[in-house]
Every structure is written in structure tokens, then in C-alpha cells.
């Protein structure tokens, strides 16, 4: 059935959820990180902004937070507050173990 193997085409890449961490300062500047360089920087900056805004707005609502854990069905994000900035950890969830091909 070699013909069907022709389906293996050079296709555009899918966004692969990364595993790693980064730090962001109180101004929203991403300082250091272990995320793959191929991962879009604008998404990392976006996440950093959302995390800082959540900490900041919580404080405005008289809620002092030191850590934030966001659970998605495919991803877990945790962020630790650090002097107005944050350290953010990203880990994809692997719910389904690989099937064994016989």
C-alpha cells in the first residue's frame, strides 16, 4: 500500500504547545525563559500580560495572590507572583497514552 504513503506531505506546521517557563517583570517585559525559540513570542507576551493583569486586578479587589494555576483541557499554566512580575510555567497535558502499533 505504498501508494497511500504519498499522503505524507510537507504540510504547514501546527502550533505545538510548549513546555517550559519564563519570567516577566512588573512592566510586562519577558526576561528569561526556557521555551523553544520557535514558539511565537507574541503569544508568550500575551500570556505574560494576562497573568500580570490578573494579579494586579486581584489586588484591586482586595485579594492578595501569590500563585495562579490555569487549567485547560490540553495545557496547564502556573504563575508565581514575584515583586510585581511573575515566573510562569507551562506544561501541556498528555491525557492519552500512545497506542502500541503492532
Amino acid at each position, binding site marked *: 500500500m505504498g501508494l497511500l504513503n504519498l499522503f505524507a506531505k510537507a504540510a504547514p506546521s501546527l*502550533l505545538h504547545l510548549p513546555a517550559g517557563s519564563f519570567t516577566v517583570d512588573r512592566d510586562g517585559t519577558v526576561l528569561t525563559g526556557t521555551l523553544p525559540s520557535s514558539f511565537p513570542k507574541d503569544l508568550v507576551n500575551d500570556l505574560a500580560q494576562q497573568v500580570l493583569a490578573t494579579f494586579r486586578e486581584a489586588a484591586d479587589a482586595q485579594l492578595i495572590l501569590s500563585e495562579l494555576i490555569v487549567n485547560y483541557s490540553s495545557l496547564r499554566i502556573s504563575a508565581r507572583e514575584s515583586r510585581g512580575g511573575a515566573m510562569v510555567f507551562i506544561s501541556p497535558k498528555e491525557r*492519552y497514552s500512545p497506542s502500541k502499533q503492532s
Partner: protein
Amino acid sequence: METRHKILLLDDDPEVLNMYQEILEQLPSQPEIRTASSGTRAMAMLEAEQFRLLICDLKMPKMDGLQVLSIVRRKYPQLRTVALTNVADEQFRSRAYALGVDQFWYKPASDQEVRMFLECLEALLGREAETGFRGVQSKSLVDIIQLECISQSSSVLRISNGQLAGKIWIQDGELIDSEAGELNGEPAFQKILSWRTGNFETLPAEPNRPRTIFKSYNALLLETAHAMDESQEQAAAGGHSEADVSSLAQLSQLDGVEFVLAMKPGEKGMQVARGLENPAHMAAWARESLARFRALADRWHAGPLEQIECLGPQRHVALASQADTEFCVGWKYTLSAGQIREMMKKVLVLWAS
């Protein structure tokens, strides 16, 4: 007359589309195969006509398969979806299932795999005839029961709601018995109908089941509809019904709970709280945070937002939503994030019940 199912095949490679069109034409039910070479074209076709099944490649330019599946799952919950890819990456399989696809396939590369693929698709196309409850997310339990009774069916409806489960026995279009936890008969039926969300499954009829309900289904459903109308009127007038307030009181009794805040999404002011002196600020922050991280999920393709746990030196807070209600629950700071996650499951189940 038997109608042919329609399958929409989405792949950016025209050769693959042609090849799979030929393969799918071997399906015994002889469905109508339509093709689309981009996510936007597929969305337009789904908008214009009704399909039974979408088979979607994952790697595509502009709008990739995960994006398409994410939109489709929300917009067309009744549509069966199959992700088909040659990317052997476990993360994508996990994410596709998290988005609610029915099946995930690596592109078959042998006769045997093609045969298995076709068998699975055929089963997927025919599943509705067996269960009859696909896509009931937009229907209420009342609708389902009415359908069963009007069509003079004999069946057992199994309804699950988180950890809660109940059964309704229907014989020749009449409700004959019900069971929910320790309740039986009419009280069990009313209890099940009070659940706001749930899953349905039809089981084979049990003709020998003793009858404990003697009212007509119309009478029982009318009584329930009346109660639901009253509840909705209360909600419209005061934000939340007495039942909601009572549920909240029950939630606030759980171990470790400091406060509970329930909100209707997007409707400022529609909230009910227990244990908070001034819930307005907290509600605004909770709504904003849930909206913010939901939007982030779309940009990151991270799948649906499940829950947010916020840990602090004085108290912890968890944010989650269920059906049409968003929750912000305050927890004692001595609890761990894992304990909060588990307790929140209990909160959501209690609320739903």
C-alpha cells in the same frame, strides 16, 4: 425514503482529497462525499448545508485543523468529527480529543488500516440510530422525554449529571418508574428534572419493571414546566431563583469553603453570593479573569478552560463555570491546589443537582 448521510472531507492537499474521496465511496452506507481544501471553505459549507460527519486534516495553512475543530465543536455540537493526520505527535491527539473529536486517526497506510478506518466511520455514521441522543446539548430533558413518549417508545433513559445518575423507565410511551439515588417514582423523576445539565443514554426497555408512576407524562411534565417557569420568573426579577440561593447555602457548608459567588456570565449585576460582604469587586475580577483566560485559550489552541486556582497567603480562590453559571469560590489557605481542584468538582456537582 432513506436519506444519504453527508460527509465533509477537509484537507489542503487536492491529491489527498481525491484519494480519500475514493476511499470513502467504499462505505457501505454510500454517503455523499463533499470536499473542502481550506478551513474557511469548510466553515462556509457547514453553514450552508447539513453534514453528518467532518473528517479534518490537522496541518493546514491559515486555519489549522485544531482551530476548525474548536469552532465546529461549539457551533455544530451534533456534527461528528474525525481528525485525520500524518503527524505522529501524541500532543495533537490529546488536544484533538480534548476538543471533543469522536475519533483520531493517523492516515491509514495499509489495506488493513483502510478497512478498519472505514468500519469505524460506518459505525460513527450509524450511531445515532442506536442511541438517538447525539447532540442533545441544546435540548432539555423535558424535550427528550416528550419525544420518547409521543413516539410511544419503550426504553430506559439513563441520565448522568457528574457523579449523580438516575433512570427513567418508559413503556409504550408512558412513564412507569424512575430512580435517582435513594429516591424512586415521582420524587426521583422530579429530582432528575431539576438537574440543569447532564448526559443521556437510552438503554433497552425493561417491560417487567413494576410501575410506580401512574400520572400521565403530560401531567408530570406540566407540573415541572410550571415549577421551571416560576424559577425563571424569579431569576428574571431578582437575578437568581430561591433554588439558587438555597444551593449556595448548601455549598457554603462544605469543608474549607470561605465564600461562594455564583454569576451569570456577561451580565453585570446578575450574581448571588454567600460569605462575602461586598461581592461586586470580586465578581468583576472573577468575570474578567475567566473571560481573559478563555480568550487566551483560543489564541493558544489550549482547549476549553476547565478551572483557575488562585493561591494567596490569606485565602485561596477557585474560578470555574458550569452550564450558564460562573463560580468564584473562596477556600481556606491551608488547602492545597490539588485539594481545591477536587473540592471544586464537588461544588459543581452539588450545584448541578
